[in-house]
Structure formats: C-alpha cells, structure tokens
C-alpha cells in the first residue's frame, strides 16, 4: 500500500509497552497481594484470636482476687506451709525429691531407632 489512507489503523507492536505474559504475571501477583491483604484486614477487624486474650484476662482477674485475699505468691499459701511443716520438711528435701521431682527425661530419637522405623 503506497498511499496512506486517513482511516487506516496501525496496531502498536505488542512488546512496546507490556507483553501478554508480563501482564498475566503482574495481575497474578496483584491478585494474591490483594487476597492476602484482604485476609489480613479482616484479621484486624475480626480479631480471630481475641478469645485467647479474654481467657487470659479471666485468669488475671482471679489473680487479683487472690491478691485481695492476701494470697499473692506461692510461699504464702497456708496449705503449702502445712505440707512442708507436717510432711515434706522443706523444698528439695528427701521426700520432695521422691515425690515432686522427676529423674527421667528420655532421648526419644534413640527409642525410635529401636522401633520399626528410623526417625
């Protein structure tokens, strides 16, 4: 075609701005960013783990109740005092050693070696 017509449409070369594949890559990444972002935003709104904080608050409330009853720390527990006075003498005593301490931590990987499969 030697003569340029006024209505002639010339297609831009595809690779000039962005190729089809690049377009797919960018939209793919954008979609995942948006999806993860949306989940995160709902995470802040919904506070899915708030039940953890609510239960913790309950125990600290119980702690304050005990503190008001003059029972803030373990060594002030009258039953514990009686336990040591009448029975176990003192912490880390012979009786405590037998009843309140363990002497068995196993290297479980080694147990596994003896079993049916190697860990």
């Amino acid at each position: 075609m030697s003569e340029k017509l006024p209505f002639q449409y010339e297609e831009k070369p595809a690779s000039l701005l962005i190729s089809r594949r690049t377009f797919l890559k960018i939209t793919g990444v954008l979609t995942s960013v948006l999806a993860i972002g949306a989940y995160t935003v709902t995470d802040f709104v919904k506070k899915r783990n708030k039940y953890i904080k609510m239960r913790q608050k309950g125990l600290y409330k119980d702690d304050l109740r005990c503190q008001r009853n003059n029972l803030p720390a373990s060594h002030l527990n009258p039953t514990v005092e009686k336990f040591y006075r009448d029975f176990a003498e003192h912490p880390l005593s012979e009786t405590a050693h037998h009843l309140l301490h363990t002497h068995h931590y196993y290297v479980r990987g080694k147990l596994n070696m003896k079993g049916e499969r190697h860990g």
Partner: protein
Amino acid sequence: MGVQKIATFSPSEKTFTGGGTFLPGEVKGIIRINPNKCVGCDTCRHHCPAGAIKGSLGVTHHIEEDLCLSCGQCLVNCPFGAIEQMSFLDEVLSRLKDPDYTVVAIIAPAVRVALAEEFGAPPGTLTVHRMHAAFKKAGFRIYENNLAADQTIMEEGYEFIAKVKYWLLGDKTPELEKFAEHPLPHFTSCCPAWIRYAELYWPDILPHISGAKSPQQMAGATVKTWVALRLWNIDPRKIYTVGIMPCTAKIYEASRPEFKSAFYWLKEKGHLPEDTPPFPDVDAVLTTRDAAELFRCLNINPLNVSPEKETDITEVYTGGATIFGNSGGVTEAALRTAYCVLSGQEPSSWNIEAVRGHTTGVRTAKLAIPLKPLGGKKANFHICVVNGVKNHLEPILEDVVIGKSPFHFIEVMNCPGGCINGGGQPVNPMGTSWIDPLLPLPLKA
C-alpha cells in the same frame, strides 16, 4: 457464639503398646484426623509445632504418631472439626459410680476460665466456687491443681535459686554439687508437649530443664501420700485421681511410666501390702471438653449450681498459681517467690507486667533483684518467655546449644497464649491461635 463439637473416641488395645518414640504403657495416638472429614485445607500442618502432620493442599492429611507431641493445636485450629481426641470419660464415669473409690479431681487453672464456654458463656468467664461445687455434685473430691502449682513454684523456684547460687554466686557447697550437671539457663518443665518436643528434637537441652514435676504430677503424688494418709485417712489404693486439664498432652504425661512415685514411696515406707500392683500417680485425665461432657451426662450445669461457701484445705491457692495458665504466668509466679527469698523482702507490686506473654511470640525482660547474701547488691536476671513453640522457640534453643544464650530463666509454653489455649479447651469455631501479626500463614516454598 457456640463452641464447636469435637468428636472423641475411646482408647484401644494398641494405645498402650509403646514402640516408636513411645515407651510401653504410654498413651499414643491421642489426636487423630478423621480421613472422611478432612478436606485437605492444610491449616493443621501450619499450626503443628513438630512437623508431625503429613499431607498437602487438597490431600487428606494424617498424623505421624512418633513425631506428634499430642498438643492438640491442630485440633483446636481445624476449621472443619475433622480432628478427634481420645477420651477417658467412660472410665471416669464408671469409677464415679463405684462406692469403693474416692475420685479426686485435680483442676487446672485454665479450666476455670473456659469451662463456662461449653455452657454458653463468653470466653474468659471465671468460675471458681461454682466449678468446685459442680465437681462435688458430680461426686468428686477436689485437690486444686493450683495448690500443686504453688508446690511446683516452691520446688522449681528453690531449684532455680540453688542454680543461681551455684553458677552465678560461686557457692560450691556439697549440697549444691548436684546442680553442676544442670547449667543455666533454667527451662520450665510444666508443659508436657514442650518436654516431649525437647526429648524428640533437642536432647542437648534436657540437662537445662527443671527436674521439678509438672503441677498435675505433683498433685497426683501428693494426694496419694500426704492427703490420703494425713488429711483424709483413706487407703491410697482406693483413690482414683483425675486431672481436669486444658491439655491433650497431659493425657500422655500422666501415662509416662516413671510417674508412679507415690506407689514406690508408699511401698518403701511399708504402707502397702507386698502384692500391690503398681499404680500411677494420676489415673486418668479429662480435658475441659470432656469435663463439660461429663457434666452434661450427669445433668449438671456449672453455671447454675450454687457456689460453695467454704474453701477446703485442699482448695486453697494463690494468685501466683492461678496465672500458670497464661503464657508468662509460671515465670511471674516463680519470680514473685524468688524475689522474696533472694531479697528477704516483698516487692512493691506483685504484678510483673514485663514477663506477661499475652499474644506476643517471645517476651524478654531484664529484672534487677537485690540479693540478701550480697548485702542488697542488685543482680540483673535475664528472663525469656516463649509463647508457642511453633516459629518462636528454635532461635532461642540454638543460642543455648552453642552457649551464647543471654538468659537465666526461659519459660516455654507449647500453645500460643499458654494453657488457656490448650488442645483440650472448648473450640471457638471462628477462632485461630495464630498469634503472629500480618501473614496468617508463613510463605514457604
């Protein structure tokens, strides 16, 4: 908002056979995935601290028993209720009906802020006297696990103080010599899933872990000795101890073969006939969910019973004990007592906010405690609280193994938030125990 119903199953013959990483007699396979219900959403695998769950997106998952800690984090986070728990409820119910036996409930701190959820109350509703009354109505006698937690602090706290004397103050007297094998940092030993995690994956850490038993095991051993012989005057063989726990790993802990110390002690002191077969310190463990099911079976609603007025001697506990159920609670309780013992005076405030884990993965704090033996000279203690084994613990253990850990005292709780978010707790259908900010799941290749 209701709670999710979690299916349970009874133990089978295979449960106690041992093998693999289990000793004979230990309960294995406490947590199992129902393959018919699993849709392969992969949530459980991202919550498992031990990498014990096999499978990938879209594939039915299964648990490798030998690697499993029985912590139940997969169970409480499964969006489809496809994970089931082994339950000893039938055994406990039949013992309650047997007039020969005294059934003793050992009630963990975290149960009192979660039990009410099963009966329609919001999370965190505190029931102490109502809960005690309900257990008594069901036929139990009570030994507070919180009381045993106070005993734990006495034993573990004094153990920590002895380690400080030996390793930091250079006190090498013969009675402290046994601590030469147990260097600092001192790790807590209350969490059975953490103990199993260390035993399976980090055996180098074992000498650092406290030798004090967990409160549940202390309670069992104390009930069958001191309480049976001196307080209640009953035959220890006719006592059936039941741990009421927020935890599925406690079921496994109670079955560990070494925890028969009351039996061996009684035998040595001549309180038992020669032919008595060995019995465990804790006979059975019910999770919070199991306890709620027990109340439903017996038509008791703990929210409607009239609270008991008097506190028995075996129900007295302190604030330090009750916060055991929160991440950072063991540390705070130990520090309250250690402060008093080391300094000879009471702290200005009992609340040590700096070590409270809340929903932070790792809390570190530096505390100055005046030391009486050094004339009130202050010493700095470096404290670390690990809130959830998954994603938080490994760098800290690596530092300990290469000897570069800056800490003196490290608390480890397997479950994010502490026992209050344990694998035996009521399950909130919309909840997640993922506490790390931003990404709900880590991006891994």
